[in-house]
C-alpha cells in the first residue's frame, strides 16, 4: 500500500478513478468476443441506450436513443446490444471500490463507476501511483480505468477527462506535471460547461458575461461570480485555481431513502393488476430495507401513464406514515395499496409505478414494546420470504397477488441479458474445455 501518512500536507492531492464505458466493459469481462466491437447497454425494459463502448460512440450512436430506432441497422455494422445486467455491474463495481481502498485510506465512492481518492506524493510519484491503480484493476478484473489527479475534485475531474481523450497519456493524467502555460492552453480550449457541476443552462448565462472557456471562469472575479451565480459557481472557480473547496465525503452509513420503481413491459390498465404490481414492489423494497438492517417511518407510492401518449397524463402520488417504523412487507403493501389504489383508475394505461420509503433509520435504534409490533412482523415474515426466494427463485413465493408462479406480463423485458456470472450459482460463466 502507498504510504501517504509521512508526506507533508502540501502534497495532498485528489485522484478521480473511473472505469471507461463501465457497463459495456463489464459485459466484456465474461464475453471476450465483445472486445473491440461496438457495444451498447439498454435501459430497463430494453428501452433506450444507457451506455456505449467507444466503438459504438464512433459509429455515431447517441446516449438515450430508443433501441427500436437502431435495432434494424445494428447487425449491418456489427453493433451488439445487451440488456442492463445490474447484478453483474453492481458486483464488479464493489470489487473496483474494494481494490481502490488498497491505495488510499480515504475513498469517496462517487457513483457506480467512479471514486475520488485522497493521495499524497510528488507529481512523479502520483503519476506512478495512477499507473499502479490502473494496472491493479486491469489485472484483477479486466476493467480499463482512467485516473485524473489534481489539487481539487474539479481539477481531478478535468485531469480525468484529459486522461481519457489524450491517447498519449495512457490513461493517467496529473495536472501538476504540466507547466502553467500548458494548463492555460488546455483550459482555453475547453468550453465552460465541461466543468464538473456546470450545467449547460448555466453556461449560457456565463457566456453572456463573456465567460466561454474554463480559463475564463478560473480567471474571473470571484466576488462578481458569487454575486451573479451564487456560491456553487464561485466554488468551482476556486477549485479550478487549485483551492480544494468540495471536501471528500465519507460513506453514509444508512441511506435515508430507499426506492423501488420500474417501467412496465406492457401497460397496467386495471386496479387489480396494479395491486399485483404493488405486492411485488412492496416485497422488493422491503427486502432492500432489511438488507441494510433498516426500518422506514413513511412511504410515498406513485404510478404514472406515459407523458408521450395521446391520452391525458395521469400520475397519482400519495404518502403514508407508519405508526411504528417497519421493514415488514405486509405493512408496506397494506399502506401502499390503501393510499394508491383509490387514485388508480381502471382503463388508464399506466407505464410505471414505484414505492419510495422515507425516514429510514437503523433497526436497532428503535426499541418498542412488543405490544405495538404487528403480529406478522414479530414472526419475521419478511426474512422468511427472502430465504425462500433466495433458495427457490424470485417467483417461488409472494404476498397475495404477487404469489402467482408465472412471470407477470408487466414485468421488465430483458431479452438480451447476459449471465449474472458473479452472483448466481446457476448462471456461472462457461469456460470451454475443447
Amino acid at each position, binding site marked *: 500500500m502507498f504510504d501517504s501518512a509521512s508526506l507533508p500536507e502540501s502534497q495532498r492531492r485528489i485522484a478521480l478513478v473511473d472505469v471507461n464505458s463501465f457497463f459495456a466493459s463489464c459485459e466484456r469481462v*465474461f*464475453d*471476450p*468476443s*465483445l*472486445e473491440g466491437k461496438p457495444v451498447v447497454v439498454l435501459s430497463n425494459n430494453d428501452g433506450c441506450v444507457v451506455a456505449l463502448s467507444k466503438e459504438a460512440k464512433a459509429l455515431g450512436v447517441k446516449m438515450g436513443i430508443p433501441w427500436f430506432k437502431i435495432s434494424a441497422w445494428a447487425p449491418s455494422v456489427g453493433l451488439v446490444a445487451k440488456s442492463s445486467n445490474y447484478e453483474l455491474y453492481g458486483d464488479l463495481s464493489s*470489487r473496483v471500490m*474494494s*481494490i481502490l481502498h488498497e491505495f488510499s485510506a480515504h475513498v469517496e465512492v462517487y457513483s457506480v463507476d467512479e471514486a475520488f481518492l485522497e493521495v499524497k506524493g510528488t507529481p512523479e510519484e502520483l503519476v506512478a501511483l495512477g499507473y499502479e491503480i490502473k494496472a491493479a484493476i486491469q*489485472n*484483477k*478484473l*479486466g476493467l480499463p480505468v482512467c485516473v485524473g489527479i489534481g489539487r481539487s475534485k474539479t481539477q481531478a475531474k478535468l485531469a480525468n477527462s484529459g486522461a481519457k481523450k489524450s491517447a498519449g497519456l495512457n490513461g493517467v493524467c496529473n495536472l501538476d506535471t504540466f507547466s502553467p502555460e500548458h494548463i492555460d492552453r488546455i483550459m482555453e480550449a475547453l468550453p465552460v460547461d465541461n466543468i464538473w457541476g456546470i450545467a449547460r443552462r448555466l453556461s449560457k448565462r456565463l457566456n453572456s458575461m463573456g465567460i466561454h472557456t474554463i480559463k475564463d471562469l478560473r480567471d474571473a472575479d470571484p466576488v462578481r461570480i458569487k454575486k451573479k451565480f451564487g456560491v456553487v459557481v464561485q466554488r468551482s472557480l476556486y477549485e479550478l485555481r487549485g483551492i480544494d473547496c468540495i471536501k471528500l465525503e465519507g460513506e453514509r452509513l444508512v441511506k435515508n431513502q430507499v426506492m423501488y420503481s420500474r417501467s412496465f413491459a406492457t401497460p397496467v390498465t386495471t386496479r387489480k393488476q396494479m395491486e399485483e404490481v404493488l405486492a411485488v414492489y412492496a416485497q422488493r423494497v422491503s427486502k432492500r430495507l432489511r438488507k441494510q438492517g433498516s426500518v422506514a417511518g413513511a412511504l410515498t407510492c406513485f404510478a404514472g401513464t406515459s407523458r408521450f401518449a395521446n391520452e391525458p397524463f395521469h400520475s397519482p402520488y400519495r404518502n403514508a406514515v407508519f405508526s411504528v417504523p417497519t421493514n415488514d412487507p405486509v405493512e408496506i403493501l397494506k399502506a401502499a395499496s390503501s393510499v394508491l389504489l383509490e387514485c388508480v383508475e381502471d382503463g388508464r394505461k399506466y407505464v410505471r409505478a414505484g414505492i419510495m420509503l422515507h425516514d429510514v433509520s437503523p433497526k436497532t435504534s428503535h426499541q418498542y414494546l412488543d405490544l405495538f409490533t404487528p403480529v406478522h412482523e414479530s414472526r419475521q415474515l419478511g426474512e422468511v420470504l427472502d430465504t425462500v426466494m433466495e433458495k427457490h427463485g424470485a417467483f417461488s413465493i409472494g404476498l397475495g397477488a404477487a404469489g402467482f408462479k408465472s412471470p407477470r406480463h408487466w414485468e421488465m423485458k430483458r431479452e438480451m441479458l447476459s449471465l449474472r*456470472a*458473479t452472483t448466481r450459482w446457476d448462471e*456461472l*460463466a*462457461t*469456460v*470451454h*474445455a*475443447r
Partner: protein
Amino acid sequence: MATPTPELVVRPLSGESLPAILAASTAVQAGFPSPAQDYFDGRVDLNTHLIKDVNSTFIVRVAGDSMKNAGISDGDEVIVDRALTPRDGDVVVAVLDGELTLKRLYIRSERVLLKAENPRFPDIAVDTLSELTIWGVVTRCLHHV
C-alpha cells in the same frame, strides 16, 4: 490436569461466509466439559481457504472434457484468480477465438504451448506468451464426484 493448549487461530468475521463443516481444534471428551471448548474456532469457511483474493477471484463452469486427465470434468466448477502471473505448468483460462478456454500452459525457451489434458485435442503453439490473452490462473477445481 495436562490438557494440551491448542493453537489459537484468529479469523476475521465474514458477512457472507459459506458455512460448511463444523470443526474444533481438539477432540471432544465425553463426560465433563473440556476446557478446550473455549478455543472452538467456528466453522471452517471455504471462502477463506479456497479464495486468496476475493476481488480478483471468479468461479466459472467447465463445458467439455479436454481437461479430463487433469481431473477437471465437464460440469465441474473451477476457481480462477485473475491476479496471478501465469507460470509454466499452470492450468489457465485463455481467450481463444473470443471464448474462455481451459488449457495447461507450458512455457519453453523456444515457444509457448497451450495443451489439452486429453490426447484427442491438438496443442496450440505460439512464439511468446504476449501473443496469448491469459484471462486467469485456475487455483482449484470443484470436481463433482
